[in-house]
């Protein structure tokens, strides 16, 4: 097994939690974000589709969902930035016997809102939502979504039938939006008891009915923290904005080389600003013309501009997957993405200039960016 290194974060540092097909890595920098230490590989050999940082209630806990091809998946956490990890004997996230299915993969880990500091959510494949109310000790299947009559008509996309996006409305603990590929977006407004589809305006070019109530292949949805009504959605063909918290969607794919893609990130403070990486569709799914271009909008999607400084513009046939792009909360915001070819790029100025932070990683499937706050030890 490879030698594992650890990072030693300080208060105010930025961490990148990088999940790959062969393990997880933790990148650390101070607020300048000009040089990075690398911790890992953690869980070498296991695919890590989901990682998360829980800084609520004085914690500094990193979550990861390693999945071994041989031994299945587990949900593990570290309170010392990767030096040690829990290893639950019994997999905490698993389907009840009555569901009649087995967990394939955990695709998303979402710590709950500040007012529910012991709550976490997991999106999994086959598409389902799990909830923990005791800080990740025990988990239960959300029966409302699992028993939804439309669920049996959802279809798997290329990555499987996965629930990959969980958006927790900061204004109401009862309102949660999730996205399933391929099922579309669903929303609950009663804390998960009942769910309804929320795809008005989103196309499904691969179906005879181009605007069905559900069944869209939503690849990623992001929601502004400062204006939760503002969302952007990257679809399997189609790039959308919502001004009403996902009730209606408007196509904003003007000025991009392709309206196909997976990854998206939204600015931490500016609801008009988002970043995407368009890909040539449908069979190729690599950056068009061999140019690695991040596109940014600063006006809510009316215009998109290529951000290429520091990114290869020749022979760069890259794929950036749905969870492999993130923005940090600093000013100016840092933006980061990883590629299927194992490259990790970062920008500390909102995309104006990019640097290659790593080359030669295993295929990158998830990137999360967080600013850490370490509680001082009591004396």
């Amino acid at each position, binding site marked *: 097994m490879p030698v594992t290194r650890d990072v030693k974060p300080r208060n105010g540092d930025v961490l990148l939690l990088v999940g790959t097909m062969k393990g997880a890595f933790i990148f650390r920098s101070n607020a300048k974000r000009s040089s990075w230490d690398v911790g890992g590989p953690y869980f070498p050999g296991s695919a890590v589709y989901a990682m998360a940082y829980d800084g609520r209630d004085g914690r500094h806990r990193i979550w990861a969902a390693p999945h071994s091809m041989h*031994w*299945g998946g587990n949900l593990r956490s570290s309170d010392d930035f990767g030096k040690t990890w829990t290893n639950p004997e*019994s997999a905490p996230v698993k389907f009840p016997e009555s569901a009649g299915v087995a967990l394939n993969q955990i695709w998303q880990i979402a710590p709950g809102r500040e007012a529910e500091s012991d709550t976490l959510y997991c999106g999994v494949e086959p598409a389902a939502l799990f909830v923990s109310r005791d800080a990740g000790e025990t988990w239960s299947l959300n029966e409302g979504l699992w028993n939804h009559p439309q669920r049996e008509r959802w279809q798997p996309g290329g990555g499987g039938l996965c629930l990959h996006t969980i958006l927790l409305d900061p204004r109401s603990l009862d309102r949660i939006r999730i996205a399933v590929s391929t099922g579309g977006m669903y929303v609950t407004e009663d804390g998960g008891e009942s769910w309804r589809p929320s795809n008005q305006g989103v196309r499904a070019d691969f179906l005879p009915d181009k605007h069905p109530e559900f069944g869209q292949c939503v690849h990623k949805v992001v929601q502004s923290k400062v204006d939760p009504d503002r969302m952007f959605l990257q679809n399997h063909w189609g790039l959308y904005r919502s001004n009403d918290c996902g009730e209606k969607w408007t196509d904003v794919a003007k000025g991009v080389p392709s309206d196909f893609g997976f990854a998206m990130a939204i600015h931490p403070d500016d609801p008009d600003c988002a970043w995407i990486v368009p890909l040539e569709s449908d069979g190729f799914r690599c950056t068009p013309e061999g140019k690695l271009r991040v596109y940014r909008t600063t006006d809510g999607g009316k215009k998109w501009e290529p951000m290429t400084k520091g990114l290869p513009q020749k022979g760069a046939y890259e794929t950036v997957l749905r969870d492999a792009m993130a923005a940090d909360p600093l000013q100016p915001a840092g933006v980061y993405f990883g590629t299927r070819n194992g490259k990790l790029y970062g920008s500390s100025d909102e995309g104006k200039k990019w640097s290659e932070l790593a080359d030669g990683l295993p295929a990158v499937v998830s990137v999360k960016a967080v600013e850490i706050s370490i509680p001082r030890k009591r004396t």
Partner: protein
Amino acid sequence: MSLVFVIPGPLRDLAGNRSEVRVKGSAESASKALSLLWAECPGVRDRVVTEVGRVRPHVNIFIDGEDIRYTGGLSSPVRDGAEIVILPALSGG
């Protein structure tokens, strides 16, 4: 009467760092034999079988040298004193 389970390296920390686990009792099938192992080493269970009770697709189980895929799966017969070997398949990429 007892059975011997041979534990693969990646799972030994879930079996008290043992490479072999001897359990008392007898079992008429692979499924019942494995239940004896789960009682002794509960952490091994979720790594070997899924929550619907199927052996994970990239895990191989041999009873006295025979792959249970070809002897009846989890219904495969088990003799007293059998050696049951759990191994990861040669798969990956």
